[in-house]
């Protein structure tokens, strides 16, 4: 995968003013009920020691991983990483097992806990407004953001842009673009003036996608099954022949005796 020409979003925590317009825009655009949301804007609060205080805010989206764990985990393949970036959901096939929620290291997918069998619960998460991208538009959150804390564009260009901002103001930023390599790279990139941990972004995910190992594991299923079946078959046959070798002679004698008996009768 790792298509070079895919879209991404860049969030710059230093520019966010915690106005939450993106949340509203998202809910309106995607028809999200009042008590749910796809984006969460979190005022982290004030950190540091007086007089060097910083205030920070984080906007949580789906990270739109290049190698999404939700997609790898889903037993029915409800998730697709589109060539142009968004990780999108197929509500028609989802069985509601919620493995994707467990597999996603960023805790993104959400479930309809309040829906019974008639309404049919589904998973919900940010789609990067894939329908708007198809119409040549930016995602609703990006289009709304008054400070350009959220911008949308080509992933490679955005990464270059992010490094450009760091280079221009090395004192302002942490020297890292979160999402450039995390979990194999993501299409939601974050720039920050405080440690990423303080923004609630998990550290220690590493650069290798979490699903590499489990996909290798599943990939071995068929060869392992065939080998194991052959071994077990061989053992069964071996044990059987061994155990019955001794009995054979006995039963042969018996059989001939019985046959002789019948003849006499």
């Amino acid at each position, binding site marked *: 995968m790792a298509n070079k020409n895919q879209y991404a979003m860049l969030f710059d925590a230093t520019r966010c003013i915690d106005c939450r317009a993106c949340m509203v825009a998202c809910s309106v655009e995607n028809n999200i009920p009042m008590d*749910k949301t796809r984006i*969460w804007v*979190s*005022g*982290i*609060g004030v950190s540091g020691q007086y007089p060097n205080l910083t205030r920070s805010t984080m906007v*949580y989206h789906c990270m739109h991983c290049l190698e999404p764990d939700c997609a*790898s*985990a*889903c*037993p*029915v*393949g*409800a998730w697709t990483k589109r060539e142009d970036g968004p990780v999108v959901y197929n509500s028609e*096939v*989802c*069985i*509601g*097992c*919620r*493995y994707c929620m*467990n*597999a996603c*290291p*960023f*805790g993104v997918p*959400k*479930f*309809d*806990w*309040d*829906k*019974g*069998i008639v309404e049919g*619960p*589904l998973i919900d998460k940010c789609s990067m407004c894939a329908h708007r991208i198809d119409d040549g538009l930016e995602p609703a959150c990006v289009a709304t953001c008054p400070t350009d804390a959220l911008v949308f564009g080509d992933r490679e260009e955005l990464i270059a842009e992010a490094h450009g901002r760091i280079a221009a103001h090395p004192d302002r930023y942490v020297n890292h673009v979160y999402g450039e390599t995390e979990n194999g790279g993501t299409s939601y990139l974050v720039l920050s003036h405080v440690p990423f941990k303080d923004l*609630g972004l*998990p550290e220690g*995910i*590493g650069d290798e996608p*979490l*699903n590499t*190992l*489990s*996909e290798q*594991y*599943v*990939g071995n*299923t068929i060869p392992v*099954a065939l080998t*194991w*079946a052959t071994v*077990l*078959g061989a*053992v*069964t046959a071996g*044990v059987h022949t061994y*155990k019955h070798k001794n009995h054979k002679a006995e039963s042969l004698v018996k059989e001939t005796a019985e046959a002789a008996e*019948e003849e006499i*009768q």
Partner: protein
Amino acid sequence: MKLKIRLSEKLHLTPGITIMLILIAWGLFVAMVRYANGIGAVSNLNDTYSWAFWISFDLFCGVALGSGAFTMAAIIHIFEIERFKPLLRPAILTGFLGYVMVIVALLVDLGRPERIWHMIVYQNHHSVLFEIGICVMTYTTVLAIEFAPVLFEGLRLPKIAHMLHRIVIPFVILGVVLSTLHQSSLGGLLLIQRSTLHPLWWTPILPLLFFISAIVVGLGMVILESSLSSRALHRGLEISLLSELASYIPYGLGIYLLLKFADLAYFGDLHYLFSSGMMSVLFWLEIIVGAVVPIIMFSQAKIRNSANGLLIGSLFVVVGLMINRFNVSWFAVEHIRNLPLAPDFMTQTSYFPSFMEVSISVGIVAAGVLAFTLAAKYLPLFEEEEETAVHEKTSALPRIQVQSGD
């Protein structure tokens, strides 16, 4: 006709059976509420704890505890250690009922149970859960086939029973392969949670550890279930056989411990053993209850040869395994999304199973126990009844034919 005579052994509504019926009815009621108003209406599951009590208990423990069926089938049919035969049928039945219970529980837990067949149609070959789903479905069918002879004998259809007896070997092998796959894959399910599962538990060899512990607990379950049913149904106990099974357990657990600690050492995680607070406590709890105590108990012939020793030792094995599965699938999983200043519906990071949530699982277990009791009453489940009765009957058939053709 004979069927009627058989069933005239009336089922008395003993207190035990009454209690089980009440539990089942209550569980059914809660399940109805769940189907009407959603999973959130009966459980405390939430976006942070999307898998918890149901998955840990019903799926992780349920599947592992059902492993006695494949372990015994392998011992008896593949290694042809015939003397264990009296233990086979109850083990297969326990396994079969266990897997049916797992499936019923999953139909409650799945958001859209009516789409369960999607697993067969929309296959995602990268998903461990897909592999487990297919294996569990197929294996439950295999267990039904392995158990079918008992049913046909119970129905006095020895010919069909005998026919099924003859083709059982391929199914046994298939069953062992499927079991190996999905018992390991339950561990494989957690491979993807490297960043959230505590390092005392997360390791690339999780599948192997799951497989070994499943075999051990399979033996443990056979011992436990024989001990319990001999008490409840007033049958004799096959002490010498169970004692021999119990003598295998320390080896299995020994290998498990060796791998577990070698793995921790290899990844440099040994320091977590005493430095992770509650996690360290939970880890030692599962190791001591599930491995150390059983190893000590079952390596002593005196304990192995006493009915109480077998019961208590196997209880340790089973409870220890359950602690392990709860740890690995729930307690030791770090639940992220600790967002500051978010409203309740987004930050609910606490979880404790609700009464209704637990009562569904309890109802399912009660149904399983009841089904086992009924089967023990009406089917030739224990060897004394079937081995002499039916085998002689079936082997007598050809002889009669020979004589009549004379």
